[in-house]
């Protein structure tokens, strides 16, 4: 620790820390237009000048390092005036002219300006007005009051330079280079924080400008729309396109992204109860100041008018219209019908589905409604099978499925082993942290090694071989066998390694040898396929075997199994599982799993199903049988914020609010508890699912009356009654840091069964998985712009297969499996292997599930080129 004097006040600071960061942390404002905390200073803007006693001239506080006894002044008149001069030069090349006008506070757009006839070039008409760092910098440096106007006597370079055209050609960003002050923050954020390097400073000197990719529009570059560059841009150059002109927020609410199990915390800015902008929120230390395109932009994936605003009922025959109805009337109606079913058959004729997108509170009440009020043991969700298989495997290996591994360690691991289809797309910020471990940034370089096991090419693959790692590309379905063989070799055995399409097996074995060194920090990420239960079980067994072979008793510290959906672990912990009650206590008399419920509905044994947030017609493989089973129910009740395919099939739909309107908790992929707070107002008649569940429970009438006045009451009940959640009552402070603490008690190798069969001659192996851009909510209503970039609306084929079948890029093809057909366009792509076809799992609301069997295993498909109409 060093002691320094800042503006006459003595403070303590870390010796060698960047001075500008210390100044800011001590609550002293300083202009620093090109600095990004934590990165190597660029020292290009010169707006951070300070005086340091003893130093010659003024110093840049971004390059200066704290040393004991330093005397720093940020406010002396000569310091301020130097910074004003610097800012004047920056302003001279910026399009605004009212930055320095003392009348600005009185000017309204449309007024006639007394000083200037160029009324468009001004903050008042700028989309970033009132939330702009350059503007704030001008204000705080008194540029207006002290009349620092460089262009009073000289021409302004801005008006002398031809401004490049703005790029508005993509759904999320607007890039308006005329506002750019060339601070290069965006370039460095993309390169050093995101490791994407989609932006560059092009040309030089006078013609310097920011460019994406090879100088074309943003969407033709490798940008993945994470928005990190937007967050650091001090001007209106890089802006979120949705709500760009109205995102002057009234309120910010911290909540959690629902689009994968990383559980990034986000802050939603609202105006009149509507979300208008999202920024990363620092609460979850893993995501910290980063999120992905889904967290940032999927809050507006579906327009308000497409959200359910009224409760619906269908009283007529199947296919007749669902008509609006009142809440109280519907609650009574549903309760009456449920009671009839129970009386006529048994409580076991009713099933309840929760969802891994629900909050813990909703799932807890859903299972409580089933078990305590209705008295049925049949509780599950439609995507449960693969997750259950994976968790049973982890439990068998370690004695617990809740491992202590923490993703906070991921970014500083020496060796990262990723077993996934495409981690970059499924769990973007986890992939980001893995890249951190491999390349770090120039201020904190890292040299981790990646061992990637993935049947598909994803961006992670580019971080393997160039950095001393390797990407092993097994056949889809053979990942587990490969990982298990690697585990056996790592444990000293002689297992034969199955062939791989790509990758350096000897190098992989070397990496495993290094990973056995207890001095190395090792993270193993396994992201099971969202549909294939057998593969998920095998994969988790193999991943557990590998982590035990490498890390012995501390294996549980290394292995992170990341489900596709946000709150799978919460759903399991709350007891949305036929075999487990809250706290995952095994039940003496297990109920039916989702698949069994579907079979029972088809056979007439299950009469009524209450679906809380789930959408089996999108998520469950083998859609045709699910559709028929749901159609044969006497009563299908759906609680959802969207008219999903399942909701359309329902007798009663209770309109819920979207996840951005909910208060509660999620349990993420490392069992970290994330907090959700309602940010947006309910639309129309919509009411949070917790109210629906409470009212239904009371109308059906169990032993107790439910009186949850606020979601926090449920959170507190969970803390009081669910083992492992004791610390997470509604009042706990450090939401992001808390985790359910558990200790593995066992370390057992388990056999991994052989990979599933190859497709028949003339068929391709159809695989599916989560892709980056398609939104959950858009997919749920089959929105034509569920994937706003329209990049994921294809079946991907290997060039050799396409050539053999004489299929050209973008041709329409029909995929035919034993279970169904699907017609869509094809993309000839280097991502898939020969003999394999890939369809994104959320494409057209889970259309690929039509082609799969109920177990979700990769299916053989024939390709027919569609006849031109």
């Amino acid at each position, binding site marked *: 620790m060093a002691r320094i004097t800042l503006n006459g006040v003595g403070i303590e600071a870390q010796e060698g820390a960047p001075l500008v960061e210390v100044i800011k942390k001590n609550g002293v404002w300083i202009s620093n237009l090109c600095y990004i905390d934590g990165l190597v200073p660029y020292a290009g803007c010169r707006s951070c000048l300070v005086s340091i006693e003893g130093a010659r001239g003024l110093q840049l506080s971004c390059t200066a390092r704290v040393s004991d006894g330093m005397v720093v002044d940020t406010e002396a008149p000569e310091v301020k005036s130097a910074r004003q001069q610097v800012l004047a030069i920056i302003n001279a090349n910026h399009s605004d002219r009212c930055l320095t006008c003392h009348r600005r506070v009185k000017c309204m757009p449309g007024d006639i300006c007394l000083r200037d006839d160029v009324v468009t070039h001004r903050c008042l008409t700028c989309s970033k007005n009132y939330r702009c760092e350059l503007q704030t910098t001008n204000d705080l440096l008194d540029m207006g009051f002290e009349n620092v106007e460089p262009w009073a006597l000289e021409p302004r370079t801005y008006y002398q330079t031809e401004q490049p055209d703005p790029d508005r050609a993509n759904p999320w960003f607007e890039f308006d280079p005329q506002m750019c002050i060339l601070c290069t923050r965006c370039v460095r954020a993309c390169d050093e924080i995101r490791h994407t*390097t989609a*932006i560059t400073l092009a040309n030089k*000197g*006078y013609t310097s400008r920011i460019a994406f990719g090879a100088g074309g529009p943003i969407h033709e570059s*490798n940008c993945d729309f994470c928005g990190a560059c937007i967050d650091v841009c001090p001007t209106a150059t890089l802006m979120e396109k949705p709500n760009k002109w109205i995102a002057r927020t009234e309120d910010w609410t911290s909540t959690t992204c629902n689009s994968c199990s990383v559980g990034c915390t986000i802050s939603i800015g609202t105006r009149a109860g509507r979300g208008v902008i999202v920024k990363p929120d620092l609460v979850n230390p893993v995501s910290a100041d980063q999120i992905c395109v889904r967290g940032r932009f999927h809050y507006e994936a579906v327009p308000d008018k497409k959200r359910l605003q009224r409760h619906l009922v269908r009283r007529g025959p199947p296919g007749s219209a669902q008509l609006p109805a009142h809440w109280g009337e519907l609650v009574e109606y549903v309760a009456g019908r449920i009671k009839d079913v129970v009386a006529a058959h048994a409580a076991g004729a009713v099933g309840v589905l929760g969802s891994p997108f629900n909050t813990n509170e909703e799932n807890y009440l859903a299972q409580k409604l089933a078990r305590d009020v209705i008295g049925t043991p049949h509780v599950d969700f439609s995507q449960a099978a693969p997750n259950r298989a994976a968790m049973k495997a982890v439990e068998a290996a370690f004695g617990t499925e809740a491992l202590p591994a923490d993703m906070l360690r991921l970014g500083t691991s020496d060796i990262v082993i990723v077993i996934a289809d495409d981690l970059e797309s499924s769990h973007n910020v986890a992939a980001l942290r893995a890249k951190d471990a491999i390349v770090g940034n120039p201020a904190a370089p890292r040299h981790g090694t990646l061992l990637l096991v993935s049947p598909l090419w994803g961006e992670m693959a580019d971080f393997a071989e160039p950095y001393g790692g390797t990407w092993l590309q097994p056949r889809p379905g053979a990942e587990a066998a490969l990982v298990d063989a690697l585990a056996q070799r790592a444990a000293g055995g002689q297992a034969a390694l199955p062939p791989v399409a790509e990758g350096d097996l000897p190098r992989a074995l070397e990496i495993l040898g290094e990973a056995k060194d207890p001095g190395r920090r090792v993270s193993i990420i396994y992201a099971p396929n969202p549909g294939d239960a057998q593969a998920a079980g095998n994969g988790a067994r193999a991943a557990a075997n590998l982590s035990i072979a490498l890390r012995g008793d501390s294996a549980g510290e290394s292995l992170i199994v990341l489900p596709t959906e946000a709150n799978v672990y919460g759903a399991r912990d709350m007891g949305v599982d036929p075999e487990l009650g809250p706290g995952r206590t095994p039940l003496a008399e297990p109920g039916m799993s989702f698949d069994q419920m579907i079979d029972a509905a088809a056979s007439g044994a299950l009469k009524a199903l209450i679906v809380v947030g789930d959408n089996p017609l999108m998520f469950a493989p083998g859609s045709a049988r699910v559709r028929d089973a749901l159609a044969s129910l006497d009563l299908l009740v759906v609680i959802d914020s969207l008219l999903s395919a399942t909701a359309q099939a329902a007798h009663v739909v209770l309109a819920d609010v979207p996840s951005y309107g909910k208060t509660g908790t999620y349990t993420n992929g490392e069992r970290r508890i994330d907090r959700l707070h309602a940010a947006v107002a309910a639309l129309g008649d919509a009411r949070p699912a917790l109210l629906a569940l409470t009212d239904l429970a009371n109308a059906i009438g169990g032993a107790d009356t439910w009186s949850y006045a606020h979601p926090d009451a449920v959170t507190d009940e969970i803390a009081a009654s669910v083992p492992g959640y004791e610390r997470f009552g509604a009042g706990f402070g450090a939401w992001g840091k808390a985790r359910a603490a558990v200790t593995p008690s066992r370390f057992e190798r388990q056999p991994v069964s052989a990979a599933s069969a190859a497709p028949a001659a003339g068929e391709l192996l159809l695989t599916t998985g989560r892709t980056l851009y398609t939104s959950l909510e858009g997919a749920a209503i089959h929105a034509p712009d569920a994937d706003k970039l329209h990049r994921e609306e294809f079946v991907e084929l290997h060039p050799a297969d396409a050539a053999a079948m004489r299929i050209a890029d973008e041709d329409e093809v029909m995929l035919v499996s034993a279970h169904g057909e699907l017609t869509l366009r094809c993309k000839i792509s280097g991502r898939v292997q020969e003999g394999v076809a890939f369809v994104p799992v959320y494409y057209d609301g889970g259309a690929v599930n039509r082609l799969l069997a109920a177990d979700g295993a990769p299916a053989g498909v024939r390709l027919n080129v569609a006849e031109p109409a």
Partner: protein
Amino acid sequence: MTVDNEATLEIQHLLRDFRPQDGDLLGALHAVQHRYGYIPRIAFRVVARQLRLSEAKVYGAATFYSEFRLTPSPATLVGWCSGPACRLKGSEGVRRMLESRLGITFGENTGDNKLGLHFAQCNGTCEYAPQVWVNGEVVGPLTAASTSDLVQKLKDEA
């Protein structure tokens, strides 16, 4: 991951001996320019992949060095001097005239590829400032009006 076509495969072949070490980037860009006379846009992706850089990094480097062209060389190349002497004597007006009369900016060609405009550095012939180089020949000192005449002449000759 995009799939190769004939054009990218040809560039890939051209670059087969280049290795992912820093110094090779300029060499690779030179090789492409030598073959095609300019750097076609698709080449950035191929160079990037070969050298394990991002496309943006390659583009940034290519646009930093004025010897690289991103468009085919035009029949007549007009280089505009960006140097200080020319600047002081009004090269800005010359530039505006060039840009508006030709309808293109630096690094671009007219639609027929007959005339191109190039951002150039001082070559020491400042006594003719402000000046341009027409296929390397110094033309100057210019005024906005005489630049307009020059453009007309070049258009007529082209």
